[in-house]
C-alpha cells in the first residue's frame, strides 16, 4: 500500500501522456458499471452484498497467486506458467497431509486451528521447494537463452506438474473436507458466511505480511536490487542465484497457501484446476501492473469481483471473454497496468 501511494505521482504522469486511450478506457468502464448497476437494481440488495463478499473472497485468492507471477516477472522477466499448477499442488499436498494430523471432515472446531495452520506451513514449504527445483532445473540453465526458451520450458513444467497430479490421484476431482465453520450471520440485509470472512482474512494477512517482508527485510531489498539491475546487484555482493531462488520460494509458498484456501472454500481440487485459475491470476497481475506487488493484489481483487458479478448478473459464458478482454485491453491501452509496471531502470 505504501508502495502504491509512493507511485501515485508517476501513475498520474502516465495519465497525462496517453489521454486518448485513457478516455476510451474510462468510457468503457463507465458503461460497464452503468450496465452492472442496472442489473444489480433488478435484484435484491442482499444478493448484491453476498456476491460482493464472494467476489472479494475469490479475488483475495487470485491476489495470492498473482503475487507469485508478478514477483518472478519482476526479478527475471519470466512468466512462470507452472505457477498455477504449483497452486494446485498446494491443494494436493494439504489433502495428503490432513490424515497425518488427524484432520477430517466433520471434525471442525477450535482444536483443529493449530494442526490446520501446521499443514498450511508444511504445504507452503513443500510448494516452495517444488518451485525452487523447477527454477533450478528448467529456468536457470536458460537464463541467458532467448526469452522464448524459458517460456516454453515453463509451459512444459506446467504439463509435468499436471501429469504428476493426474498420476498421483487420478483424473477426477477430489473432495476437499469442509473444515471451516459453516455458520452465517446477518448484518441488516447482508448475509455473511464466517467461512468467507476467514478466507478473506487469511489471504489479506498473507499478502500484507509478504509485502512488508519485501519492502522491509534485507532479502526483500536484495530482491528489489536484483530486479532493478542484476549485474550491479551482483557487484554489490548480492548472491543472485540465492535471491532468485528465494523469490520463487516465496511466490510458491503464497500459491500453496492459495491452494489450501481455495480447497477449503470450494470443497474440491482437480489436477487441471491451476491452468485456468493461473491464467486468471496472471491476467490480474498484468491488470495491476506486472512486476508491481500492490498492483497484483489490487488486480486480483478486481478480477475476482468482475468474475463474480459477471457470473451472477450476466451470462457466465461471457466471463472469460470479459476477463481476457481486460488482459488484451490492458496490454494495448495501458501496458503498465493500473498501478504502473516496475520498469527496470537501465
Amino acid at each position, binding site marked *: 500500500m505504501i508502495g502504491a501511494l509512493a507511485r501515485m505521482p508517476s501513475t498520474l504522469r502516465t495519465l497525462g501522456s496517453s489521454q486518448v486511450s485513457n478516455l476510451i478506457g474510462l468510457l468503457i468502464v463507465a458503461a460497464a458499471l452503468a450496465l452492472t448497476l442496472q442489473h444489480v437494481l433488478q435484484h435484491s440488495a*442482499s444478493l448484491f452484498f453476498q456476491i460482493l463478499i464472494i467476489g472479494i473472497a475469490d479475488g483475495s485468492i487470485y491476489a495470492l497467486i498473482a503475487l507469485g507471477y508478478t514477483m518472478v516477472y519482476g526479478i527475471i522477466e519470466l512468466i512462470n506458467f507452472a505457477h498455477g499448477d504449483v497452486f494446485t499442488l498446494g491443494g494436493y499436498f494439504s489433502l495428503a497431509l490432513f490424515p497425518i494430523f488427524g484432520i477430517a471432515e466433520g471434525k471442525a472446531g477450535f482444536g483443529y486451528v493449530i494442526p490446520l495452520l501446521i499443514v498450511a506451513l508444511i504445504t507452503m514449504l513443500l510448494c516452495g521447494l517444488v518451485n525452487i527445483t523447477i527454477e533450478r532445473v528448467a529456468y536457470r540453465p536458460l537464463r541467458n537463452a532467448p526469452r522464448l526458451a524459458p517460456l516454453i520450458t515453463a509451459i512444459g513444467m506446467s504439463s509435468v506438474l499436471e501429469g504428476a497430479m493426474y498420476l498421483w490421484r487420478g483424473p477426477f476431482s477430489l473432495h476437499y473436507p469442509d473444515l471451516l465453520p459453516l*455458520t452465517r450471520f446477518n448484518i441488516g440485509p447482508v448475509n455473511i458466511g464466517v467461512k468467507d470472512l476467514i478466507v478473506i482474512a487469511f489471504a489479506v494477512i498473507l499478502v500484507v505480511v509478504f509485502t512488508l517482508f519485501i519492502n522491509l527485510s534485507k532479502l526483500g531489498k536484495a530482491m528489489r536490487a536484483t530486479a532493478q539491475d542484476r549485474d550491479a546487484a551482483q557487484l554489490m555482493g548480492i548472491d543472485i542465484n540465492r535471491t532468485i531462488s528465494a523469490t520463487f520460494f516465496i511466490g510458491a509458498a503464497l500459491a500453496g497457501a492459495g491452494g489450501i484456501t481455495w480447497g477449503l472454500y470450494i*470443497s474440491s481440487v482437480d489436477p487441471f*484446476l491451476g491452468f485456468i485459475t493461473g491464467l486468471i491470476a496472471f491476467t490480474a497481475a498484468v491488470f495491476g501492473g506486472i512486476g508491481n506487488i500492490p498492483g497484483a493484489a489490487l488486480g486480483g481483487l478486481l478480477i475476482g469481483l468482475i468474475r463474480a458479478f459477471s457470473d451472477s448478473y450476466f451470462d457466465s459464458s461471457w*466471463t472469460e471473454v470479459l476477463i481476457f478482454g481486460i488482459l488484451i485491453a490492458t496490454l494495448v491501452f495501458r501496458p503498465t497496468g493500473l498501478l504502473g509496471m516496475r520498469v527496470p531502470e537501465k
Partner: protein
Amino acid sequence: MVRARGLAVLIIATFVAFACGGTTSSGSKGEIDIASDLPTSGADASSGLPTQEGANFAVTRAGTVRGYTLKFVPFDDSVNGVHDPAHGVQNVQAMISNNLILGMVGPFNSNVAKAEIPVANAAPLAMMSPSNTNECLTVTYSYCQSADGFTAESLRPSGSNNYFRVAAPDTFQGPAMADFALKAAPAGLGITKIAVWDDEETFGQGVANNFAKEFTAKGGTVVDRKSYDPKAKSDFHDFLASAKANGAQGIYVGGTSATGACKARGQMAGLFNPDIYYLGPDGIGDAQCLTDSGSMATSNMYATQGVADATQNPSAATIVAAYKAAYPGASNIGAYTFAGYDCAAILIDAIGRAIDANGGKTPTRAQVITALGQTKNFQGLTGVITLNTAGDQTTPTLQFQQVQNGAWVFKSQFAVGGTTS
C-alpha cells in the same frame, strides 16, 4: 534358404493345425463370436467392466446357438483410463477382419458410438449398445447437425441401419425429472420453483432445456437459468447465492460428474439447508458425484437412469441371482451390467433367427442385422424389449435413483413412449 523353407513349412503346418482345431470340435457346427467394445481399464473401468461381465455372463450361459459354439471376445476402448473414440474404431476394424464375429455389444459412450457407427455400418457389423443415450445417434432432430456435428443418416453411409441400443435416449430424461419434481409427494417432490443450470455441453444443455420446457409447461417456474463453463467454473457460491435469492426450492443441473456438475452440491453446505433438492440426469448418477457432494450427499439428490433396474424385475430374479453367485464382488454390478447381459442375449437370439432364416447355415452379418431389427417382445432382464428400425426400444424404461446412505439406490421406474417425434 533351407532354413527359410523349413520355417515356411512350420508356419503352414501351424495354420493347418489351427484350422483343423477350429472345425473338428465334436458335435459343433462351428464357432460364432460375439465381441464387446467397452472401456474396461483405468477410471472408466468402474462402469465398463461390470457391463462387460454382464455380456460375458450371457454368452457363457447360452454356450451354444443352433449347434454353433459361442465365444465372447472382449475389446477395451480406453486409452490411459479414458474411453477413446479412435481406439474404439481400431477395435471395430479388428472385429470386422475376424470373420467369426457376427455382432458386438457396445460401445459404452455416445462419442465412441459416433466414431464407430460409420465404420461398422460400411462392413456391415451389428452393434448393440447397453448405455448410449445421445438421441441423435438414432433419430435425426433438427438440431443434431448444428449441436453434435452429425445426424443419424450421416453416421450410416450404407443407408441402412446396423446400430441398436436398449437405453432410453436423452430426450426423455429432462421431461421425466420435471414431471417428478412437480408431482406432489410422495409420488414426486412437490416443488414449483427451481433453478436450472447446464454445463454448456451438448448433452447437458439438451437435458436442461428439455427439463425447463416441461417444468414451465406443467405450471412450475424456472426462477434462475444459468450456464457454466466446466473448464473455468469451480466456485459456484455466486450461482448458489443467486438461486437462493430467487427462491429456488431445488436445482436441476444438466451435466455430468466429469463436467463438475456435483461440485456445486458440495459448496451448498451452510448456504442452504441440507433439505434443498439437487436433481440431474444419468451423468450425475455415479460415485464421483457423491464424492464431490461431500457432506451434502443427502437423500434429497435424485438422478434419472436410461435403463431399468433388473433387480426390480421378478422374472429376472433367477438369472440375477446366478450372476451374483458367479460375480460376487460389489464392483461387479454397475448401472449397465444387466443391460450388457440383455444386449448379448438379444444378439444371440437374433443370430439364432438368422441361422434359421439361412437354412441352418452360418448367416451373413447383414442377415444378423436384419434379424436384430426384427427383435420383438424379447424377455430381457431389464424388461420386454422390442427394437424399431431406427435402433431404439419402442418403449424404453426410465429409472429414478435417490441417494441413500452414501449410494445411489433405486427409487422408481416407468416406461416412456416411442421415439418418433
